[in-house]
């Protein structure tokens, strides 16, 4: 269990590093394009590159955000529930969400495969963009993993406590 937890945290951390570079990449590309436009030589692919990097930024932060419990829960009613019930609900929540995001990850992967196989290229730069799609897919996979590890954590704590 501890080992799984550590792997999960390391994975989230690794993705956050790449995401960090991507967000600085957006900053650099978009700023450079402003400067280039002033000298009448804008980079025609700036829109696309920024969009693709944006996808990486968000996808790679999903697992970390969940680990930090950064997603908002409506607690108006459940904060009055008994502690035991609340913990069970948390487990149910992790399970449903984990299953759902596994599906999402798988489907984004399928979508990427479709683009790869059909040879579809990006609109402006005419480059193969499936690696970015796969990146988003792996971001969701790590989110699902994080949810499952949290679920397992709930069980372990229950046995110990």
């Amino acid at each position, binding site marked *: 269990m501890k080992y799984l937890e550590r792997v999960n945290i390391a994975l989230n951390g690794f993705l956050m590093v790449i995401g960090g570079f991507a967000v600085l990449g957006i900053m650099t590309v978009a700023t450079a394009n402003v400067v280039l436009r002033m000298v009448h030589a804008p980079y025609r692919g700036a829109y696309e590159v920024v969009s693709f990097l944006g996808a990486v930024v968000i996808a790679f932060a999903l697992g970390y955000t969940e680990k*930090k419990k950064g997603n908002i829960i409506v607690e108006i009613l459940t904060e009055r529930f008994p502690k035991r019930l609340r913990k069970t609900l948390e487990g149910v*929540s992790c399970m449903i969400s984990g299953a759902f995001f596994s*599906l999402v990850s798988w489907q984004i992967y399928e979508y990427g495969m479709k683009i790869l196989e059909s040879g579809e290229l990006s609109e402006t730069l005419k480059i193969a963009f499936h690696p970015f799609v796969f990146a988003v897919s792996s971001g969701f996979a790590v989110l699902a993993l994080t949810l499952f590890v949290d679920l397992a954590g709930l069980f372990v704590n229950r046995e110990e406590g």
Partner: protein
Amino acid sequence: MEGPIVGVIGIIVMFAVLFLLRIPAAFTMAIVGFAGVVYVTSFKAALGMIGADMWNIFSSYGLTVIPMFILVGEFAHWGGYNNSLYNATYRWFGHYRGGLAITTIMACAIFSAISGSNSATAATMSTVAIPEMKKYNYRPELNAGAVAAGATLGVLIPPSIVLVIYGLYTGQSIGKLFFGNVIPSIILTVLIAATVFYICWRHPDWGPKGPKSTWRERFGALPDLIEISLLFGIIMFALFTGCVTATEAAAASCALGLIMCLMRRKLSWKGFIASVTDTLHISAMVFIIVAGAVIFGRFLAVTRLPFEAASWISTLALPGWALFWIIMLCYIIGGCVMDALAFLLVSLPIFYPIVMEMGYDPIWFGQVITIVTTMGAIMPPVGLCCYVVAGMAKDIPLSTVFKGSLYYIPSYIIAILLLMLFPYGTVMVLSNLVR
């Protein structure tokens, strides 16, 4: 079962799950929306939707403005610039009741003139304003409410994504829409600020008066503002005269802000890492809410509920003004249960012709619609701005944010009434100037 009924049941199920299951709101919308699409079409169809929709949202250029404007806010925050900004405003306005909340509203209005979306404004202003107001013992209801309501100015004040979409949809000039928006924006900003005064008059302890600073202290605080004003001035100048998109303006301000922080040795390595990390996870939180809203909206579209509801209303034999207010009500409810933009896209083709037939001015109607959908962003239970603020301010629960925001609802209604009573004086006087 009939499609629209499935839609209604879907909305009920969504709320039940939201309130009872402790699943994050964004996940709830996505999961219930997905399950609904499975029910109405097929599992295979829903699977195909989910993959492509997620990719489309994640790779949308318009949304990249969110991480950029959060990042500039983070640099300013970790570099200590917000401190100086708030310290200076406190010296000048702190001895008035709620002075910092008023400053926050004004800062939101300024940010809104750069950002087209209210979630970006909400996220940025939460980092900038809430910690400062907390420091001066402002009550969370006032802090969070002021930021949430102020952030709705993000989609109202141009550049506004809602107005651009409205313009494209109806073929109206974007220039006219933006110009027609100037007075309504001022009206609403003033009304929201007036609400702060009202709150502080009713609850004197919510935004306590500070000690009066000496003139020496007041002017002594000003040099701290030079750098941040310079940065701001450059962005504003670029946006209004120059040639940049909102994302580019945000990115350039990030770069400038970073350079400034480094030159003045204000940003430590730790602060830099924290800025980037915070930006990533806040952006992820905002994006996943948008994605949930889009998927839930997709489900409602498949059930045809929005289409059927709208066309049913249009067949009612009612006088024009009653019909108009029913349409307004639909937008308010729509704004409560789904993303305002998604609802706008679904409903405009049906409502727009009805409203035009009733003889209303299209530019004017665009302003009214924008204010109404904007109000949806702070209405419980799905108000996007409140979720963002609650997510940002870890120690303020969502219910407090909603409670604080409800004070501002009358502002929007008064603004709409003013627009209805004086359509020429509020909207057309400026929009008619545009060719």
